[in-house]
């Protein structure tokens, strides 16, 4: 309920985007680079020509109205579109100095380095909390109990879940609340120690308090992992992200990148009038 107050008060959201470390982070090389990335399904383009850099240890948000291709773009970053036969990704996506579609890195290995959190919490219902957290490690062939335990504890601590579940790691994931389940999914992704964490509207199915906890978590996780988040919620983008990409559906219904830059700039002083329209339209 208190969130409504925030939502009605744009200045409070746009103002406090100050980030001490961000100046340092910009000096590090980008964690990911997108060059002219397009995604099409059955020959119909869904996102076109996106080019931007994702800075290490920062939160980059993808915003834009529905249909602008935010999620489509996000899912191209860990090659989830490989599952869809009709999907085709063009352009270049670099993870460090590896072209992820170049063939040198198998998709399964890529996905162990780029974690993902989905819209709805999707813990594996047949596994215990512990098994959920270490599932990624086990998939990747890691069997050493000590390493599994260490990674699980570290991930659960980072996901702010350790205190509440450390005594019942054998319980099923489904016994947790929705917000806890989503944090379990974050822990599950973190346990593999990915370099990048993709978050696809991670709070869209959660209540305001759980949402707030996850947002706090994102800011805390920055020193551990680079985060790319898709969100419908402008305030959320303003609160948690350092950089922001604004996408919009073009005339042929394909999403296009309109503007990319530091979140403060996008929200306070956008260069493109369409960005301004969108931001003002939402706020005003």
């Amino acid at each position: 309920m208190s969130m409504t107050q925030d939502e009605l008060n744009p200045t409070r959201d746009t103002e406090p985007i100050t980030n001490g470390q961000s100046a340092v982070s910009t000096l590090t090389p980008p964690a990911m680079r997108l060059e002219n990335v397009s995604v099409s399904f059955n020959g119909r383009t869904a996102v076109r020509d996106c080019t931007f850099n994702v800075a290490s240890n920062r939160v980059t948000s993808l915003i834009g109205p529905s249909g602008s291709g935010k999620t489509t773009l996000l899912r191209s970053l860990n090659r989830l579109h490989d599952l869809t036969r009709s999907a085709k990704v063009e352009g270049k996506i670099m993870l460090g100095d590896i072209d992820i579609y170049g063939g040198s890195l198998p998709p399964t290995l890529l996905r162990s380095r780029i974690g993902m959190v989905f819209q709805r919490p999707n813990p594996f219902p047949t596994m215990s909390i512990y098994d959920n957290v270490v599932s990624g490690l086990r998939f990747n062939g890691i069997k050493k109990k000590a390493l599994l335990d260490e990674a699980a504890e570290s991930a659960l601590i980072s996901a702010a879940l350790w205190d509440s579940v450390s005594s019942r790691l054998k319980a099923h994931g489904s016994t947790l609340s929705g917000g806890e389940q989503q944090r379990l999914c974050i822990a599950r992704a973190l346990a593999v120690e990915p370099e990048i964490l993709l978050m696809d509207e991670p709070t869209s199915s959660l209540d305001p308090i759980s949402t707030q906890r996850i947002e706090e978590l994102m800011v805390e996780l920055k020193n551990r992992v680079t985060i790319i988040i898709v969100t419908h919620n402008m305030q959320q983008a303003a609160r948690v992200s350092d950089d922001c990409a604004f996408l919009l559906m073009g005339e042929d219904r394909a999403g296009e990148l309109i503007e990319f830059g530091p979140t403060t700039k996008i929200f306070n002083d956008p260069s493109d009038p369409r960005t301004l329209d969108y931001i003002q339209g939402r706020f005003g």
Partner: protein
Amino acid sequence: MTEESSSTKTRLLSRGLTGGIHPPVKSDLGYWLSIRAGALIFGAAIVLFVWSILHQSLSAWTSHGIHILTGTVWSPSTSNYGALPLILATLITTAVALLVAVPIGLGTSLTIIFFLPQRLKTPITSLVELLAAVPSVVYGLWGLFVLVPWMNTTIEPKLASITGGGFPFNGATNGFGLLLASIVLSVMILPTIVAISRDVIAAVPHEQIEGALSLGATKSQTLLKVVLPEARTGIFGAITLGAGRALGETIAVAMVIGSNPQIPKSLFSTGATLSSTIATEFGEASGAQLAALGALALILMVITASVNAGARTLTRRALRGHA
């Protein structure tokens, strides 16, 4: 929500319980009565059915008692009515049939859902369903004239050489017997297992699959560690349903099992199941033998009804879990 309440209202309306606007119409009584009469007739028929089989077997139970279940010799000519050999053969053929059909059926379901290109899915599914349309007696004929020679000259010698003539592939072979019956049964229950398991596997939410893949799982890891465990209740339902079918299958088994009621010594043994014995002996039976066959029918009814009830519970629970 609105749909729910409107449907409740409709039900109340249709029962004439809402009063007021739609008072119970007198002439609707006919409808009310007729749908209940239909149900009643069938209910009564079921009661008669159960009673008939109980009653038919009554004299067998009173004269032989528990010996019918535990006796090891079934020989009408000497008035020995011990169903143990038949019960064993029924259980063994069903178990072996499941052993063959379950992995093949699950693999088939997984292939159809996760590996076939979209345009092949429907035709291949229809082909597998076609297996269910072939009548039992045709499978019997096929077993008799196609499989018996093949078993006799190829499969049985090969299996025997694998175990060195040891259990369970020991003894004389002639093609007929428990093994052939099991293979024919496995073909017959395959479509059941595929149909049900396909439904429950397809009902596993896509988010779970993407969740596993996004952690770096390979496709087969995803299927084995996430999809199959999650569908397990429904898969058990499918297996139970298949078991129910195999336990009661009659004609095809009667044609290939060798009709020789004996305690099986190996999978090559000839034998007779509960249902195949009823089929082959009923025509010439009278008196005590007819009563004993009634007892077999009762045993068969109890086993298959419990198995089917279990299958129903499992599949319903599985499909509701995902709804």
